[in-house]
């Protein structure tokens, strides 16, 4: 299991996709936060690929929430996709599944 975090970006059609791999915790969430906020300077459509995320804590959730706030301010859109069981469980525990736009796959996120 990957213990650190890799965050990369790519562009598909009109959407910036942030691919996240590994574990998001107190030590690694600042890198995710920076990439999300930087990416929002380049696009009005941001999709976060969480397929390869094996763990997320409240600091990771807070990073995505901060990006969502910024997106709301700049009239951009954020879509999460590829949530596995544990990531979805943490979103449910924090009662935030209704706050984020969530799609199952990248294709569905791009069509949204």
């Amino acid at each position, binding site marked *: 299991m990957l213990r650190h975090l890799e965050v990369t970006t790519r562009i598909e059609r009109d959407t910036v996709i942030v691919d996240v791999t590994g574990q998001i*915790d*107190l030590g690694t969430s600042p890198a995710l936060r920076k990439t999300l906020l930087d990416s929002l300077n380049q696009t009005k459509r941001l999709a976060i690929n969480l397929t390869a995320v094996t*763990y997320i804590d409240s600091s990771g959730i*807070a990073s995505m929430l901060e990006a969502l706030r910024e997106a709301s301010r700049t009239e951009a859109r954020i879509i999460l996709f590829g949530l596995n069981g544990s990531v979805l469980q943490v979103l449910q525990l924090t009662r935030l599944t209704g706050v984020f736009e969530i799609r199952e796959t990248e294709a569905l996120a791009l069509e949204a």
Partner: protein
Amino acid sequence: MNLHLTLDMPSHPCFLSVVRSAVGELSGICDLSTEECTAVTLAVDEALANIIRHAYKGRYDKKIKFDCLVDEEQMVFTLLDQGEPPDMRNICAESADELALSGRGTHLIKAIMDEVSYKRVSEGNQLTLIKRLPSFRTRANS
């Protein structure tokens, strides 16, 4: 089964994944469901992160004593630090705003664990988290 696991760890986030691995594996051995293993791991991780962030103000060179005691009834996690004592007024104080950027960790801990208690002891701040095990819950309910 009785098991006692102790770990003297630096207050550096890179050690959080080590504790998560241990807690996750132990929870599985204790017959907790996959969801409960994830939840208990999250609760312990959030508690450690709070110590690093709040008690030690983000300093990574301090010490945390992690202690896990498992018997047939429960898992008892005890975390000890020598940082700033928690301000009890701030614990779970930000529940009103669902989009708040902080304060979620303590809510998660309380929602997941069966008992949570904070105590100031001579060695520092002691946080105890208790999770009842399925076999004990079954007996207690029958």
